[in-house]
């Protein structure tokens, strides 16, 4: 049957593994569009993964309520992390790059997420609930597109809805126009009566919440459970930051890019394991396969930066620059 073929399997896994990257990238995109570069995505995802798993274990009720509460817990955890960062860089005008790195170190695999996970006893606990694949409209057996598009978890469909909403929000609403103004020229936005500080806080916090949900995709759906250290998220936060750059700060391109990396992160290794194609042994080692998304990130980033760096298509002009009203 066509649905068992290598290509369909790779694409199905691409969507599964691309989803956390998509959530995190959409969140980072919101923050960057308002002019704030948050390099703490990896840390926020790790905390989101730990707290999402905790929320799911503690929540009462059926699968649906428990998982909804878990996703909300993860989003809130990511939001709190982003709040720390926002206070530092927006109110206290600290260097955004160093503060973002500090957030990842603070929240990361040797910091808060590890502390929380161990303190709340999350390690080696079997998951009580987990996201299952939904058979949408009974279309899961449709050739090719069935397993890829119509037999995925609720998180995948949530990410699609968010992509559409964020794209419309940024390009079609008054608020979205204001956000873009804040990211491009905060002084002009301020003169128009837009509250720059408020917009930046709101979008950095929203970005944190989405990164938290992105982290929870791992602990609730892809590999249900929590493990100590940073292997759970494994660099997806950094890939998400790169993804925002080479999607030219556009949500719809984030979706495409996320699945490209999802395919490399999950699809290709799973497919090669299952089908064992006739290629040299080195290309079948887990180390080579696992390094593909990282190497691809560098490659795509180089391609984008050589041809577009001078024009900086899409990059908010005030990205990374603190706004101080008295110094405009």
């Amino acid at each position, binding site marked *: 049957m066509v649905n068992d073929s290598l290509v369909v399997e790779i694409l199905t896994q691409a969507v599964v593994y691309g989803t956390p990257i998509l959530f995190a990238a959409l969140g980072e995109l919101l923050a960057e569009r308002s002019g704030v570069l948050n390099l703490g995505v990896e840390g926020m995802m790790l905390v989101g993964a730990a707290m999402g798993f905790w929320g799911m274990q503690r929540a009462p009720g059926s699968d649906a309520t428990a998982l909804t509460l878990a996703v909300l817990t993860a989003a809130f955890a990511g939001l709190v992390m982003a709040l720390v960062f926002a206070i530092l860089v927006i109110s206290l005008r600290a260097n955004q790059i*160093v503060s973002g790195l500090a957030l990842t170190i603070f929240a990361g695999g040797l910091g*808060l997420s*590890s502390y929380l996970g161990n303190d709340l006893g999350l390690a080696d606990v079997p998951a009580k609930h987990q996201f299952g694949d939904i058979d949408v409209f009974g279309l899961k057996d449709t050739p090719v597109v069935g397993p890829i598009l119509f037999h995925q978890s609720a998180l995948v469909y949530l990410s699609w809805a968010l992509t559409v909403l964020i794209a419309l929000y940024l390009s079609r609403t008054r608020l979205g126009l204001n956000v873009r103004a804040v990211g491009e020229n905060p002084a002009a936005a301020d003169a128009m009566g837009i509250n720059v500080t408020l917009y930046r806080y709101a979008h950095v916090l929203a970005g944190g919440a989405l990164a938290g949900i992105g982290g929870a995709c791992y602990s609730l759906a892809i590999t249900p459970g929590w493990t100590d250290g940073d292997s759970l998220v494994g660099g997806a936060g950094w890939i998400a930051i790169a993804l925002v750059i080479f999607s030219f700060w556009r949500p719809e391109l984030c979706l495409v890019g996320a699945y490209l990396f999802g395919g490399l992160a999950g699809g290709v290794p799973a497919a090669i394991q299952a089908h064992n194609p006739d290629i040299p042994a080195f290309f079948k080692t887990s*180390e080579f396969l696992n390094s593909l998304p*990282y190497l691809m990130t560098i490659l795509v980033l180089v391609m984008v*930066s050589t041809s577009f760096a001078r024009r900086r298509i899409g990059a908010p002009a005030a990205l990374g620059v603190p706004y101080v009203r008295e*110094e405009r």
Partner: protein
Amino acid sequence: MIAVERRLTQPRWLTYVIPFVSVAVAFGIMAVVLLATGHDPGRTYRRLFDAAFHGSAAWTDTVTLATPLIFTGLAAAVAFRMQLFNIGAEGQLYIGAICAAGAAIWLGPDHALTLTILAMCVCGAAGAALWALIAGVLRAFARTNEIITTLMLNYVAGLLLTYMIFDSASPWRDVSTVQTRSFPQSVALKPSQFWPTVTVFGVSVSFGFLLAIGVAVALWVLFRVTRFGFEMNVIGDSQRAARYSGMRTRRKILAVMAISGAVAGLGGASQIGDFSHVLDASPQGLQGAAYGYTGIVVAALGRYNPFAVFLVGVLVGGLQNAGLFLQGADFPIGLVGVIQGIILFCVLGGELLVRYRVRLGRRPVAAVETS
């Protein structure tokens, strides 16, 4: 009403006092966190201090843990000083360790120790510098964001290390006994290849630690005395000004990336020669220690000044030593990262007070610098 306005002049004493106040505030915040989680802050701090700095045994461990952090901290400081955000010290340290171990294994135990040490340092530094130059070349010629490329290369370096020991028949892998064939591990250095230690007041100080001091001094000279260091500072302050005055920014990016990588690579060489004597690819080995990432904390707290980085390296090494020593049910290891993060947040936030004046009152005097 709180108003914040820019200082016209930054008093020099303030730049020294504020970091200490920030650290004190951080420990205050941490005390609240400890109280909230049911610990006695006074007792916890006391135990932390004793475990890190009380007695020669504690100092020996602190110096051991501080050595790689000083190397990675200096590596980050060199690059960050020029606003070149090399966060790849982690991977560069792995590559340094791989190359240094390779040099030692290839030379064998029958050479003079001086030659072995020299070969390990040169190979470790050169290998790591080349690894860092991948990102450096991309940054200099294609303007590729170095933050992301160096970070991605960290993961690749980690996977390379794992591959060499666990998944291949590389010369680094020990296949001499049945046991090592089933539980992969690297070829160990012979005792005649171990780097020497000196004992100072009962504290055993490794050769790598002395080497780190040497590197700090060399970097201080580079920053303070040479034209190269001056140009680095100018480029860090304003790339445009540097280019207009005829400085070769592209060349400088390559050179600084190579130096930064080489320093991190020496850290890797010292790990092999001084402490572990094997190339440990397990998750508890080099890859579990996160020396490279902690080095960024060290560099930022030391404000990219080599001597301050050295001192902060010793303090953070002490904190990590205490964390390992106290590790257990009432002191989870993640707490050390949390403390480091809070200190870093407070210091970063405290910088505001150096650059700005906070006024309480309704109407601040309108004395604002126009830029």
